[in-house]
């Protein structure tokens, strides 16, 4: 089983030492470096229950999950996948703000399963002075089955114009008569 990726992820073109991506540098179709999480443990689900306050016994008590919940045994909180994908997003966005993040759990996740989180930029546009990118996100288990699917919107800045930036065609400014 692979450990979750170390930070910064190997091979990432721009090491986010102090800032995240700039709007003009992001292309539609860009695939975020995937984040492969370690297999989920029952202890982890207990920690998640405590951290999130979600003490639905189906996530930690095998008997209740089987008999009262009817889910065939303990299963992970659906939104733990959202936490994992949140990590994927922030690893790429760094300090660029998320505006919106929505996710659906589409398959049951059990202890022992390892999720891989992925994302792809599907749109970029400007709206009300925000430079927005839309990222289609998801997670799949070690069998390749999709467990979560959703989207995120983030606002990216553009690089400030350098003062006195060279102009490509100075003759246009000098009003030279042509012909």
């Amino acid at each position, binding site marked *: 089983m692979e450990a979750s990726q170390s930070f910064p992820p190997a091979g990432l073109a721009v090491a986010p030492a102090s800032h995240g991506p700039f709007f003009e540098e992001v292309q539609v179709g860009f695939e975020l470096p995937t984040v492969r999480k370690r297999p989920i443990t029952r202890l982890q689900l207990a920690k998640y229950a405590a*951290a999130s306050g979600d003490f639905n016994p189906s996530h930690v008590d095998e008997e*209740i999950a089987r008999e009262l919940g009817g889910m065939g045994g303990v299963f992970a909180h659906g939104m733990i996948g*959202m936490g994992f994908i949140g990590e994927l997003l922030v690893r790429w966005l760094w*300090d660029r703000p998320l505006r919106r993040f929505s996710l659906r759990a589409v398959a049951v996740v059990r202890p022992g399963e390892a999720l891989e989180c992925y994302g792809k930029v599907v749109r970029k546009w400007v709206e009300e002075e925000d430079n927005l990118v839309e990222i289609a996100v998801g997670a799949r288990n070690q069998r390749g089955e999709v467990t979560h699917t959703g989207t995120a919107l983030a606002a990216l800045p553009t690089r400030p114009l350098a003062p006195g930036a060279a102009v490509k065609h100075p003759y246009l400014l000098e009003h030279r008569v042509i012909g």
Partner: protein
Amino acid sequence: MAINHDGLGRETPWAETVVTQEQIGALCDALEDDLPLFGDPAVAAASAYGGIVAPPTFINVFRRAKTELLLGALEVDLPKLLHGEQEIVYYAPLRPGDRVRHRIKIIEVGRKKSRTYGELDYFTVLITVKNREDQKLVEARQRFFVREG
């Protein structure tokens, strides 16, 4: 019926809390997420955030009286709940030390076909987190399906 439809519109009272590094650390530990923006003051200070911020799903920890709301107003059984969907809208980052207030409200109750589970009762809660100036910081809509039988 697995759900009391009269629960529509019921809400918890506004609850005052403080965002703490301990809560952030506990969530990151459970997620096995060691991103320094959430826990290393020096690295976070060098970012545009200027300091440590809470991770994107931190709103899930705001749940004062949520269980009472679900059990009391909707009369649902906890083990039957499936938290299938969530949409979070961010207005401003949450930071350790922020004094905030939050409220949870049932905004939808109904029956629908889930792509994953078939036709089921469901409900949606809206969690709103505001600062002391009454400005929204983050809000989440969470949809739960209620298994039958």
